[in-house]
C-alpha cells in the first residue's frame, strides 16, 4: 500500500543542509494499522507530510497503491490526496465557517462527485461516527471528541485506500481519546489501512505495528511478532 525506499528530505540553506528524513524506508501493507512514533523533531510529521503527498521528498522513491508518486506534479498529487488518502489531524482541522455536513462534503466536492452520491455517503459516514443528529451544527458547537469524529467522517467519506492520522487524540481528554481510538480500531477492523503518527506510546501500542523514528531515520520497523503481541497486550 505504502512503500518508501531510501527516502530523504533535506532543507538547504546557504551554509548547511539539514536532513529531516534520511535513508528512510518503510513498507505498509494493505489492511495494516501502523503507528509511527518518535520524539519531537524526529521527522514524524515530515514523514506524514510526504506520505500524504503534502510535501515532496528530495531523494528516494515513494510508491502509493502500486504507483510511484515521488515525481508527480502538484495537480496529480492533489488528485491522489483527494482520491486515495484520508487525513485525520490532531487539531481536527475542520473549516469553522462550514457546518458538519458541509465539512464532510469538502473533499467530495473537489472530486466532483454527483450531489446524490455525496449526500448518501455523508449520511453513511456521519451515521457511522454517531453524528447524524448534528450535521447542521458548526464545529464551534461541538466538543473536541465530536469534532474529531467529524474529521474522521470526512476522512472516510471518500473511501480512501489509506488513512493518515496525525496525533488523532492529541487534543482530547482521555475519555474522548479512548472513544476516538475505538473508532479507528473499528475502521481498521473493517479493512482500512491506517498509518498513525504519535509520540504517545500507549496509543501506539494499540496499533498492529510500531515504527520508531529518531533523527529522521527508522530505528525499529516493529516487525518482530513478539513486540507486536506485547504492544497489543498493553492496549
Amino acid at each position: 500500500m505504502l512503500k518508501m525506499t531510501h527516502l530523504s528530505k533535506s532543507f538547504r540553506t546557504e551554509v548547511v543542509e539539514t536532513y529531516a528524513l534520511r535513508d528512510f524506508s518503510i513498507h505498509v501493507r494493505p489492511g495494516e494499522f501502523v503507528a509511527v512514533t518518535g520524539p519531537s523533531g524526529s521527522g514524524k510529521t515530515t514523514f506524514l507530510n510526504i506520505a500524504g503527498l503534502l510535501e515532496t521528498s528530495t531523494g528516494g522513491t515513494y510508491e502509493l497503491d502500486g504507483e510511484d508518486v515521488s515525481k508527480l506534479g502538484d495537480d496529480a498529487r492533489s488528485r491522489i490526496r483527494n482520491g486515495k488518502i484520508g487525513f485525520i489531524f490532531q487539531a481536527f482541522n475542520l473549516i469553522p465557517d462550514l457546518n458538519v455536513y458541509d465539512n464532510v462534503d469538502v473533499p467530495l466536492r473537489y472530486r466532483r462527485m454527483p450531489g446524490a452520491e455525496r449526500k448518501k455517503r455523508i449520511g453513511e459516514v456521519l451515521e457511522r461516527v454517531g453524528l447524524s443528529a448534528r450535521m447542521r451544527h458548526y464545529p464551534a458547537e461541538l466538543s473536541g471528541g465530536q469534532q474529531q469524529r467529524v474529521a474522521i467522517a470526512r476522512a472516510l467519506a471518500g473511501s480512501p485506500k489509506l488513512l493518515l492520522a496525525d496525533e488523532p487524540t492529541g487534543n482530547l481528554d482521555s475519555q474522548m481519546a479512548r472513544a476516538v481510538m475505538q473508532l479507528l480500531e473499528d475502521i481498521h477492523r473493517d479493512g482500512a489501512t491506517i498509518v498513525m503518527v504519535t509520540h504517545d506510546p500507549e496509543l501506539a501500542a494499540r496499533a498492529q505495528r510500531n515504527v520508531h523514528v529518531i533523527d529522521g531515520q527508522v530505528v525499529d520497523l516493529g516487525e518482530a511478532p513478539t513486540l507486536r503481541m506485547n504492544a497489543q497486550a498493553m492496549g
Partner: protein
Amino acid sequence: MDIAPILAALKRQKTAAALIAIEIALSCAIICNVLFLITHRLERSHVPSGVAEDELVYIRTAGIGASGEDDPMVRAKEDLGALSSLPGVKSATIVNQIPFGHSSWNTGVKLAPDQQHTSANVGAYYADEHLLDTFGLKLIAGRGFLPDEFLNFEDVLKGKVDPPSAVIITKTMATRLFGNEDAIGKSIYLDDTKPTRVVGIVEHLVRPNFGSDLIDADTSMLLPVRLSLGYGQFVLRTDPANRDALIAAAKKKLKSVSPNRIVLSADKLSDTRSKYFKQDRVMAGLLIAVVVSLLIVTALGIVGLASFWVQRRRRQIGIRRALGATRAQILHYFQTENFLIVTVGIALGMLGAYAISGWLMQQYELPRLPFFYLPIGALALWALGQLAVLAPALRAASVPPATATRTV
C-alpha cells in the same frame, strides 16, 4: 465551482462581506450615473450646429453718443455693404443671434390660434436674404425666403406689421411639431392672429444656448426679418485661413464707415463653440477623475479584504489543499467568492443608480439614466473585482498543503 459552500461560508462573514458589497453598490450607483453624465456632456459638446463653423467670424458693435438721427435700417445696409466688399468675404449677413453665442431670442409657437399653451419654445433667428448662404445652412426641403416675404425689424418693433408670412424651421422642430407628416406648407402661429407658413426645412441650426436636452438645442427657426443696426451682429463667411485677417480688416472698415462706435466683440465661431463647451469638458474631466478615484478606492477595498481573508484563512486553505483541492480550485474559490459579493453589490447598486438618477432628474432636469448603463457598470465592477482579487487569490493558491499539519 460550486457556490453553495461559498455562500454558506460567507453567511458566517456577513459584516465584512456586507461592507464590501455596500462599497461596490455605492460605486456601481455612482459610476453608472457619472458615466452617463460624462457621455451626456461629451454628446452635448458634439451637437451639430448646422452652420459652417470653420468659415464664420462675427462682430458685435455698439454706437457711441446720440443716435436716432440716421435710419438704423439704412445704417445696417451700409455697414453690411462695406463688410461684404472686404477681400475674401464670401457672404455677409446681419443676424440677431449666433450659435453658441449665449444671448438668445426665443419665442413660443402654436399650431392653432386658439391654442392655450404653446407647442414648443423655439430659438428665433431673424434672417435677411444672405443668411442661408452665409451660415452655410443645408436646406433639405422647401425653399428659401422670397423677396416679398421679408419684413423690416423697425416695423416689427413698432407693431406696424403682421407676423412674418413664411418661416424656415429645422428638421428637429418639424418632427416635434408635425411628427412624420411633411411640414412644408403647414402653418404655425407666432401670435394669435395670422398664420406663418413653413416654406423650408434646414437639417440643423443650433440655438445660441441650451440645456441638457439636445432635441431642444436644435429646435430653431428662421424668420424673414431684416435687422437694423443696434439689434444685430455681423457674420461674415470666408476661408478658414483668412478669418483672423478678416476680423482685423472688418474692425478697421467699420470704424472707417462710422467712427462713433466701438467693437464689443469679434471672434471666430469655432472659438466661440470651443468656449461654450469649455465647462462641459472640464466637468467631464472632473467626472472621469471621480470615476477613476472611485474605482481605485473600491479596488483597494477588495484587495484589502481579500488579502485579510487569505491571511486569516491560510490554515483553512492548507486544509482544503490537503483534502485534495488543486491550486486552480483554491484560486477559483476566491474568485467565485469575490464574484458573489460583487454581484450582490451590483444588484444593490443598480437600485441605487436609479435612485440617484431620479434625484438628478428632479434637481438638474437630466434625462433618466438609460438602461444600458447598468450592464456597463456591472461589467466594469465585475472586471475590477476579478482584477483586484487576483493577487490575493494567487497568494491563496500558493499556500502549501502542508500548512494543514503545521503550527499545532
